[in-house]
C-alpha cells in the first residue's frame, strides 16, 4: 500500500534528485491497476522523506478494466488493494525506474554511493513467518524493525489469534545505495507475500537474475527467495541459482538440497483425501505429518512393506485404493509380477500429480497398458475394482469418518472382494514417541481417528469374520517395547 524512503544524508533534499521526482509537487502516475501517488511529506536539509501511496482500484481487480474483461480475483473482499505486494514492486519499477537502475542525471556520484537510508513498508503480508523478514533483510546489512499490526483486538473474546494480523510494518535502515535498497524491496516484497498478481513466466526468471545479480548469489536464503519469487517452479530456481553462482558445484548443491526440502511440499501420502497441488493448506497438513515421521523414514518403509507383501502374495492384478500421488504405483510398476495396476483416488488433484509423477503421457505403450488411474471414492460401490487379486489401502481408512467405515467395508469386502486386502494405518500408541506432539493430537489434520493396536484388531477381526476373510496383523517400523511399531498393517486373505 505504501512505501516511504527517508535519508539523513546531507543535504537530504538531494533525495529528490536521486528519485527523479520534484519535491515541489504531488505526482500522480497511472498504473494498470490504479495509480501511484508520489510526494514528500518531509523535506529539509537534514532529513527528507519520500512517500509512494498505491491507490489500487478494488472493483477493477474483480471486474477487469473494461467491458467483458476478466479481473484478477474472484473475491471483492481481499487484502490485495491494501497491502504491499507485487503491485508495489511493479509501481517501483514503473515510477522509480532510474533510481532502481542506479542512475541519476543530477547526482550520478551520489547514486553510486552508499548513504544512510531507511525504508518503511506497510502493510507487509508475512503470514506468520515474521522471522523470515529478518532472515531476508539482515544478511543484506539492514537494521530491521518490525511493528506488528493488530488484526481486530475487539473480537479477541471470540478466541485466540485476534491480536495479530498477518501483516507487519517493516522498517529498514542502513547505509546502502538507493538502487540496492530499491532492488531488495523489489524482489523481497513479493517473496514475503508469496503471491503475485500476474502470471509468472520466464521473463520473471530474467528479472530475478537482473535485479538480484549483485546480491542474491551470496544471500544465505537464496533458494527460498528464488523458489518463492518464481512461484515454486523448481527447475527455474535451479537455473537462476546456477546463473548467479560462482561455480557449478554450488549450484548442484543448491539443487540437491532443494529437491530434498521439496518433499515437504507435495505429499506422497497415499490417502483418500486430496493432496497438495495448488492447495497449500493440504500440503501443509501433509508436510506436518511427514515431518513427524521423517526421522524414521516411515512412509518409505510402509510402501516398501506393502509392495513386498503384494509380491509375496503372488498378486498380479492389484488396486491401490487412495493412491494419492502414486508413490506405491511407481514401486509396483517396477515389478513385472504386477500385470495390471489400478490407482484410485477421490482427489483429482492427487491423480494429476500421480499422472505427472508416473509420466503417464510419455510412458511406453507396453508399460502404459499395465496401469490405469481413476477417480473413485471408497464409500461407494465401484464396479471397476471388482475381481482383482489384491487391494492396498495405505494410510487411507483414518481419513474417513468412522460412521462411513461400514460403507467402505461393504464396498471393499462384499463387492470388490479381492483375494487379498492390505490395510495400513497409524498406531496411535506410538504418537507418544514423536517429538512435539501434544497428547491426543493426531498426525495429520485430516485424520478422523487414529487407532491403537487393540482398536485396529477390534475393527479388523470382526470385518474378516463377517465377510469370509482371515486376517493377520503386524507392525511396520521399529517396534517399541511399550508402544509397538509406528504404523500397523492388516493383511486379509479371502477364505475359499
Amino acid at each position, binding site marked *: 500500500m505504501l512505501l516511504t524512503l527517508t535519508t539523513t544524508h546531507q543535504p537530504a533534499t538531494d533525495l529528490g534528485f536521486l528519485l527523479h521526482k520534484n519535491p515541489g509537487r504531488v505526482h500522480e502516475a497511472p498504473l494498470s491497476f490504479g495509480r501511484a501517488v508520489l510526494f514528500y511529506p518531509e523535506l529539509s536539509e537534514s532529513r527528507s522523506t519520500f512517500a509512494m*501511496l498505491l491507490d489500487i482500484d478494488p472493483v477493477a481487480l474483480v471486474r477487469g478494466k473494461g467491458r467483458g474483461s476478466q479481473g484478477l480475483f474472484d473475491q471483492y473482499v481481499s487484502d490485495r488493494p491494501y497491502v504491499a505486494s507485487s503491485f508495489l514492486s511493479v509501481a517501483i519499477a514503473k515510477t522509480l525506474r532510474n533510481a532502481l537502475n542506479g542512475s541519476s542525471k543530477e547526482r550520478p556520484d551520489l547514486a553510486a554511493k552508499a548513504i544512510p537510508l531507511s525504508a518503511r513498508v506497510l502493510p507487509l503480508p508475512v503470514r506468520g513467518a515474521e522471522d523470515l523478514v529478518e532472515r531476508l533483510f539482515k544478511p543484506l546489512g539492514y537494521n530491521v524493525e518490525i511493528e506488528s499490526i493488530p488484526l481486530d483486538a475487539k473480537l479477541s473474546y471470540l478466541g485466540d489469534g485476534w491480536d495479530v494480523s498477518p501483516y507487519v510494518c517493516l522498517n529498514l535502515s542502513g547505509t546502502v545505495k538507493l538502487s540496492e535498497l530499491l532492488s531488495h524491496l523489489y524482489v523481497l516484497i513479493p517473496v514475503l507475500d508469496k503471491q503475485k498478481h500476474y502470471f509468472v513466466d520466464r521473463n520473471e526468471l530474467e528479472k530475478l537474475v537482473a535485479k538480484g545479480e549483485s546480491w542474491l548469489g551470496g544471500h544465505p536464503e537464496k533458494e527460498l527467495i528464488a523458489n518463492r519469487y518464481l512461484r515454486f517452479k523448481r527447475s527455474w530456481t535451479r537455473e537462476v541459482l546456477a546463473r548467479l553462482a560462482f561455480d557449478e558445484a554450488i549450484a548442484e548443491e543448491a539443487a540437491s538440497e532443494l529437491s530434498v526440502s521439496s518433499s515437504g511440499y507435495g505429499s506422497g501420502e497415499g490417502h483418500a483425501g486430496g493432496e497438495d497441488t495448488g492447495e497449500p493448506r493440504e500440503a501443509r497438513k501433509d508436510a506436518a505429518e511427514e515431518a513427524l515421521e521423517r526421522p524414521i523414514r516411515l512412509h518409505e518403509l510402509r510402501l516398501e512393506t506393502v509392495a513386498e507383501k503384494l509380491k509375496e502374495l503372488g498378486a498380479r492384478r492389484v488396486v491401490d485404493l487412495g493412491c494419492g500421488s502414486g508413490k506405491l504405483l511407481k514401486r509396483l510398476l517396477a515389478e513385472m509380477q504386477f500385470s495390471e495396476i489400478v490407482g484410485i483416488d477421490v482427489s*483429482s488433484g492427487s491423480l494429476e500429480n500421480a499422472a505427472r509423477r508416473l509420466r503417464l503421457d510419455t510412458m511406453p505403450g507396453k508399460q502404459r497398458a499395465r496401469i490405469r488411474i481413476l477417480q473413485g471414492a471408497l464409500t461407494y460401490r465401484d464396479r471397476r475394482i471388482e475381481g482383482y487379486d489384491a487391494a492396498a489401502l495405505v494410510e487411507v481408512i483414518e481419513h474417513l469418518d468412522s460412521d462411513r467405515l461400514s460403507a467402505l467395508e461393504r464396498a471393499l469386502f462384499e463387492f470388490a472382494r479381492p483375494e487379498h486386502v492390505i490395510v495400513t494405518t497409524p498406531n496411535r500408541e506410538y504418537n507418544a514417541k514423536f517429538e512435539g506432539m501434544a497428547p491426543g493430537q493426531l498426525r495429520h489434520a485430516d485424520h478422523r481417528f487414529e487407532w491403537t493396536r487393540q482398536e485396529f484388531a477390534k475393527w479388523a477381526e470382526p470385518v474378516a469374520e463377517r465377510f469370509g476373510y482371515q486376517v493377520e496383523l503386524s507392525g511396520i517400523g521399529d517396534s517399541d517395547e511399550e508402544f509397538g511399531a509406528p504404523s500397523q498393517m492388516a493383511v486379509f486373505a479371502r477364505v475359499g
Partner: protein
Amino acid sequence: MKITIPEFCLVALVGASGSGKSTFARKHFLPTEIVSSDACRGVVSDDENDLDATDDAFKLVHYIAETRLRRRKLVVIDATNVRKEDRARLIQLAKAHHALAVAFVVNPGEDICHERNRERPDRQFGAHVVRNHTRALKRDIKRIDKEGFRYVHEFRSVEAIEAVEIERTRLWTDRRDEIGPFDIIGDVHGCRDELLGLFGKLGYSVRLEGEGLDRRVVAEVPEGRRVIFVGDLVDRGPASPDVLRIAMHMVEQGQALCVPGNHDVKLLRYLNGRNVKLNHGLDATVSQLDREPPEFKQTVKKFIDGLVSHAWLEGGRLAIAHAGIKEPMLGRASGAIREFCLYGETSGETDEFGLPIRYNWAAEYRGKTTVVYGHTPVPEAEWLNNTLCVDTGCVFGGKLTALRWPEKEIVSVEAAQVYMAPIRPFAHPPTRPGVVLSQQAMHDDLLDLDDVIGKRIVTTAMGRTVQVPEANAAAALEVMSRFAIQPKWLIHLPPTMSPCETSTREGFLEHPDEAFAYFDKEGAGRVVVEEKHMGSRALAVVCREEDAARRRFGVTSGETGALFTRTGRSFFNDAVTTEAMLERIRAGMDACDFWSRFDTDWALLDAELMPWSAKAQGLIKEQYAATGAAANAGLGEAVSLLEKAGHGGLDTAELLADFASRKARADQYVDAYRRYCWPVTSLDDYKFAPFHLLATEGKVHMDRDHLWHMQELGLIAAEGGPSLMATTYRVVDLSSEAERLVATEWWLQQTANGGEGMVIKPFDFSVRGARGMVQPALKVRGSEYLRIIYGPEYDLEGNLARLRKRGLGLKRSLAMREFALGQEALLRFVAREPLRRVHECVFAILALECEPVDPRL
C-alpha cells in the same frame, strides 16, 4: 393375406438377391425399423455392393439390431439370410433380448430374381450369386420352422408377396393400457377364509354359495378397483378349489387379473397327466380337487393354461410377476422370462435346510417400474428398490397381504392358523449383525458410484431436466466423500439465492423496489418479506427419538438427527453439541404438539444458525478481518502522510479528502462484520432461526405458502427457549403502494440497525410465471452489510456505478435448477424411494455448486 406379428419382435427377411425383400420391407415397416445389410455396407464403405465390407457391415447390422431390441423396438433385418447360420445368429440375438423371431421368406422364383438384377446396373455380379442363394435356401427351408422362429411365412409368388397385409398385435405381457386402482394380493395357497377376510378389509364383498357343480362365487368390487393375484393360489392350504373358484370368477368378470405361480403351473402339469411328485402341498390340492366334479378340473386346467408370465401395467409404472422380474424382461415374452417369473433365480447352491439359495434380484433392481411379487415368504411386506414382496406366508401361519395401488397402502389379515410348518424361518438375513434395519435401509448402507459420477441428467417433478456436467460431478465426489455427513441424513440441500436487480437510487446497490418489481412482473400478487439473518445456512433433520432415526433414516449410530451446512457438512464438529441443539429444537416441537399434528416422527427444517462467527470464524479472520486490518493500517498512515505533506505546503487537500473518506469506509467495514460476531459460551448463545418447514413423513411442504411456514415455525420458535429465534416477516400486497412503502421503511430501519437485509419470496412456495418458474426467493441486502460482500469502498460512487452492472442470469438459472433438484430429492425421500434416488439429486446440487475439475486422466 393378413399376417399378425407381435409389435415387438425381430423380423428376418429371407430371400435371394433380387427377390424383392427391400421393397417388401419398405411397404410394411418404418424406415427406422429396417436394418439393411446393403445400407450398412454403404455406411462403412461408401459402396453398397462392396463385398469386402461384408464383415464390418454385418457387425453394424447386429449392433443396430441389438440396440433396438434392448430398447424394446421392433427390428427388420433386410439381408438375404439364406444360410442357416446367418439366421441362427439373428435368433440368438432375439433370444438374448426376449424378443420373438419371425421369418418372412420372400421367394418369387429364381427367374424373377435374375431378371430384376439384370435391370439394375449396380447388381452385375453374375447369375451364379442368385443361383447360390436359391440353392442355400432350398437346402434347409423345409426345416426352417425348427430353427427357433416363432412364426415362418413363405411367399412363393409375386402375387402372394403383394397380397400380404401385416397387422401388429400387442404381446400378452404388455398390458400398459390397463390402469388401476388395483389391490394386489400375495400368495394365497388355498387359504380361502383369510382371502375372504382380506377382501372384506379391502371393501370387496365376495362370498361362495352352493355345493358341487352349483358352487358359485358372488363378488362385488368397490367402484373402479380390481384385484391382482400374484399367483400360487393353490397347495398346502385347506381350500385351494374355492380359492381357484374365486380367482377364476373374478378374472372372468373382469374384476381381477392373475399371473401364474410355480405351484399353479405344477398343478397344471398334474392335471395334464404329467408325472409330477405329489409333494410341497400339491398332495393336499389333489385330494381337495378329487372331491370336485371333473368339469371343474377342466376349467382350472384352461384357466391356468391361459395365464401369462407377468403383467406390465399402467403405462409401464407397475408390473406383477410371481417370483419377480428383471427390468430388461418387462413386457416381453420368452421361455426364460416365464421361468424367471415362476421360480426366480437361484445361485445353484442350497442352504442348511436343503432349499435352493435364492438370488435376491430385487437388491440389484433399478427399474422405474414398480414390481410387486410373491413367491418368497417374508415376515413383513417391505419396499426394496421400488419392489415389494407381498407373500407374507399366510399358509405358514403368517398373514395374507395386499398392496393397494396407487395408494401404496399395505393391508393384511393374520392367518387363522398354521396350515403347514415352514421349512425354514422366513426372515430377512441381516447384513449387519445385531442391527435391525429395513431391507431398504440395509441396502442403502452402500451407494453406487455409477449413480453419481459421469455426466448426470436428473428429471425433476418441477418439469425441469437438470444436467450435471461430468467435471462438476467429479469435483462433488471429493467434497461428498471427504467432508459431507452420512448420506442417509443428507436428503436435501438448499438452492443458491439470487439478489434483486441492482438499484439505481443514489448510494444504493440493492433496494426492495427492484425485488417488488420482479415479483410483480412475474404476477406473484403477494409476497412474503422475511428478515434475513446473518449467520450460516443450516438444515436440521430432527427425529422425535432415536428409534425414529433408525426406522426412517436407517441410522443406528444413536444420533437423533443432523445439522448440516449448505454444502452438506456437519454444522458442529462434535456430536454432543449437535445433539444438544437438536434437543432444543425438539423441545420446541414437543411443546407445540408438532408430532401428532403432522402425524410424523421426523421433520426437516431450513434455517439460519447464528452467530456467523460460530461457523465462519476462520473465514472472518483470514479474509474479512485481515482485509480490515490491512486497509486501516495502510489508509491510516496514508492520511497522516498526506496531512504532513499538506502542513509542509504541498497541495494535498483533494487527495486527503479522498483517502480520508476511504479510511472512514474501512472503519465502517470493520464495524459491519463485527456486528455478526458474538462469543459463544453456551448453547444459549446460538440462535437457530427456521424459515422453511420443508418436509415431514409423507409430505413435502413446498406446496404450502410462506405465511403457513412462518406461522408453523413461529410456534416452534416460541416454545424452543433461548436457542431458537423466530423470523420476523410481513405479507405485502404488491398492488398496494402503501404496503410496499411500509415494507421498504421496515427494511431501511432494519438495515440501519445493523440487520443484513431481507429475503422476499412469492407468497406461494413455488410459482410458475408467464416465463416459466419464478425465483423462489430474492435477497435484498442492506448497504452496510454489502460492504462485507463488495469490500470497504464499494459505495464510492465510481465503484457503485460499475458494480451496478451485474449479470444475474447465471445465478438465477442456477437457483432454479437447484430449487428443482432440492424439491425432487424430498419428493423421492417422502415417497420412500431408495436412497440412491435421493442422493442423486442432492449430489447434483452439490455438483452444481462445485468448481469443475478434469475427471479424466
